[in-house]
């Protein structure tokens, strides 16, 4: 009962305060137009008549994430990476991925029904995730979104079967770490790819450059044979997808196996 009264007080407060605020609608209420910076992004995200500054991707958010503000995203990915590394550092010696005793696929995990349903839906979900990831420069979605959708599969397999089910099939944290590092190195090298191309042909090019810019004419192609790939965006999405899917899997494997054997520290 106490909770209900507290809640009622809070909700009525909100409703009341809003009445007051409506009289003084200020900067924080969305208006009819967007800001000029947003207008720039919307105007140039794909614009054949503005070739000096365009990304050639109809998806403005992915364009901002990987091109206009690509540096942010590189380091955002590194934050996730460093958090995983910090987690691995904390769990070092606390978990082991070798089987202790016997592991029976029948008795561990949830019931057969759930297992079978998971088995059937897994390829479908991976296809959906890959579609979200690989169409990131065309429709909402992108590397992180696709990778996270794909990562639901290892997570659900871990929960529905057992962590050892994956390990018995070779999905260990070490392998996933390699996969993740490969994805991240891919992102890193794509981010300086244009620079390196420029270096090779003796032209100036920026780090994170995608399309040619005034004063830096090196750039990656926007489409291949009519299929839009938006230069670096496609590669970024691909590598990010791999890295994120592997990263989520590592996180769950370590967390679930922590405290389960291992040398116990030091």
């Amino acid at each position, binding site marked *: 009962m106490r909770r209900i009264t507290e809640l009622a007080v809070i909700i009525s407060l909100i409703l009341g305060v809003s009445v007051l605020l409506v009289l003084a*609608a*200020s*900067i*924080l*209420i969305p*208006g009819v*137009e*967007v*800001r*000029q*910076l947003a207008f*720039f*992004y919307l105007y140039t995200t794909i614009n054949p008549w503005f070739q*000096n*500054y365009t990304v050639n991707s109809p998806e403005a958010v992915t364009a901002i994430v990987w*091109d*206009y*503000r*690509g*540096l*942010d995203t*590189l*380091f*955002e990915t*590194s*934050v996730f*990476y*460093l*958090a995983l*590394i*910090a987690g*691995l*550092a*904390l769990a*070092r*010696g606390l978990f082991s991925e070798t089987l202790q005793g016997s592991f029976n696929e029948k008795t561990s995990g949830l019931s057969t029904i759930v297992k079978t349903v998971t088995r059937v839906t897994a390829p479908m979900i991976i296809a959906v995730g890959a579609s979200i990831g690989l169409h990131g420069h065309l429709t909402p979605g992108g590397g992180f979104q696709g990778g996270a959708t794909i990562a639901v599969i290892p997570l659900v397999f871990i929960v529905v079967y057992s962590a050892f089910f994956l390990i018995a099939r070779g999905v260990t944290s*070490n392998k996933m*770490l*390699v996969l993740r*590092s490969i994805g*991240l*190195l891919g992102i*890193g*090298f794509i*981010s*300086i790819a244009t*620079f390196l191309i420029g270096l090779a042909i003796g032209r*100036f*090019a*920026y*780090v*994170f*450059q*995608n399309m040619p*810019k*005034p*004063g*830096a004419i090196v750039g990656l192609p926007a489409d291949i044979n009519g299929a839009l790939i938006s230069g670096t965006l496609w590669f970024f999405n691909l590598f990010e997808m791999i890295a994120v899917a592997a990263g989520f899997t590592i996180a769950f494997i370590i967390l679930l196996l922590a405290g389960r054997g291992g040398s116990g*520290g*030091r």
Partner: protein
Amino acid sequence: MDLALNLLGLLTPVLIIHAFAIPIAKIVGSRKLQYALALSASLFGVLSTTMVLDKVYREGPIIYLYGGWPPHFGIVYEVDSLNALIGLLTAWIMLAIVVYSYWYRHHLDDPTWYYTLLIGLETGIIGCLYTGDAFNLFVMIEVLSISAYGLVAYHRDRAEAIEAAAKYALIGAVATTFYFTAVVLLYAGYGSVNMGVLAYATRPWLLFSSPLARVPDTLKYLSLLSIALSLWVFTYKSALFPNHFWLPDAHPEAPTPVSAALSGLVVNVGVYATARFLYTIFGENSALGEYRSIVMFALFLLGVVSGFIGALMMMKQDDIKRLLAYSTISHMGIAYMGISAGFLTGNDTAVKYAVAGGVIHVVAHSIAKSMLFMASGVFIDAAGSRNLDDIKGVGRHYPLASASMILGFLSLAGFIPLIGFYSKRYIAQGYLNAGSALVPVLLIAISALSLPGYLKVVSAVLFSTGGKQTGLIKEKWIEYLLFGMTLSLIALGVVFQYTWSIYESASNALVNGYNVYLERTLENIPPDLKGFIYNELIRAYAGVKP
């Protein structure tokens, strides 16, 4: 092709690529390779920052456009003489720390994760310093923070380390969330997250060429809210009272090289960012208006309080690393006293001297404090304990390290001719210039109060006997590293008259440099894109809802 410019752009991506590659080296199975990667990363940092500093002194602030996007539309790195100086300092000290980590390797059971996080930390610090974008600053603060949390908790078997990391991380995450809100509010108010454009946007008299251009009240309060939220994370990172509570726990519990990095380098980020926000973005006569002086004065008072608290708490510590951590709090207080001199409006000379003092203090403190932590690591290793009672007399086996330690303490306490003297002198001079004799007295009082703490360490390490002295480590080469850093303290003090121009230009970059900063930003925006900025600002100041 401009080498320095390219190096500036490549610096952080290349550093983080090194960090990505280190776990691969673990799986390949070579410890040497990991170490080589870490060393090459830090050497690359040293090379780039040196080149950048050189270019900045020859040509003024330089700007790097990531992806070729002009400022305001993309992310830029903008380096003027202030962040070039601190960046150089960071890279060099980080190199020393990486070398020291090799000596420290006996304590690192699985160095892969350690080196990855260490390089991540360096990337974070340098990114925070060089970036010219308020949101990128948020991302880099998170890179720095997450590496710092992981490194503080690195000695997992110590309950204290985990506890310190938990407290540090929980409140730190809240603080960075608030910084994110602050950036979003800035964007809501001014329509930009670029520091140069913000510096332009917050000064309506530049835009409307009339000194009396009125700032709408909503915008003023919004600026105040956003500066309050962002100052929380900056003062948290630099452990200013009352946000200092985590530092004495977290810094000592980290592995010793990391303590050196945290105490010597990470705290600078907070000071730098505060200065950047309060001078470059919200300078005099900006949209923050009269609140700026109030904020600055509050920061000054907090600086004084934390100076005293650090000095007082230092006296009753038994743990050598904890004592040094409290000393960090005290010195950050002093640095803030210098940096926050901006409330002396109308007296540019005074502000310039005090801010220069603050900058010199950052430099002096970084070198001395990281060196002291490393030296304490040597003694702790020899005695097998962090307690001052156990360390008694250990220093006699390490003459160079002991000498370095004494000189470092002298520099911190402000003895001539070490660099630490000049910092306090210039802060005092600045405030004297403004007619305040109280501040020099306060500075002297803080220094005097911290002396007993330093003496306690020196007497324990050198002038008493009866410590435990268990495992004396044979690798004495590390002393040369420490002594080299000490020599730099002396050298910086001796040649101070010739290097004064560096600090002066750094101080100028803050106090009067906003116009250079924003001009450099604006001239990098092509003419056909300038309209986007002007239209936005006209709308913001007309109070029209976008």
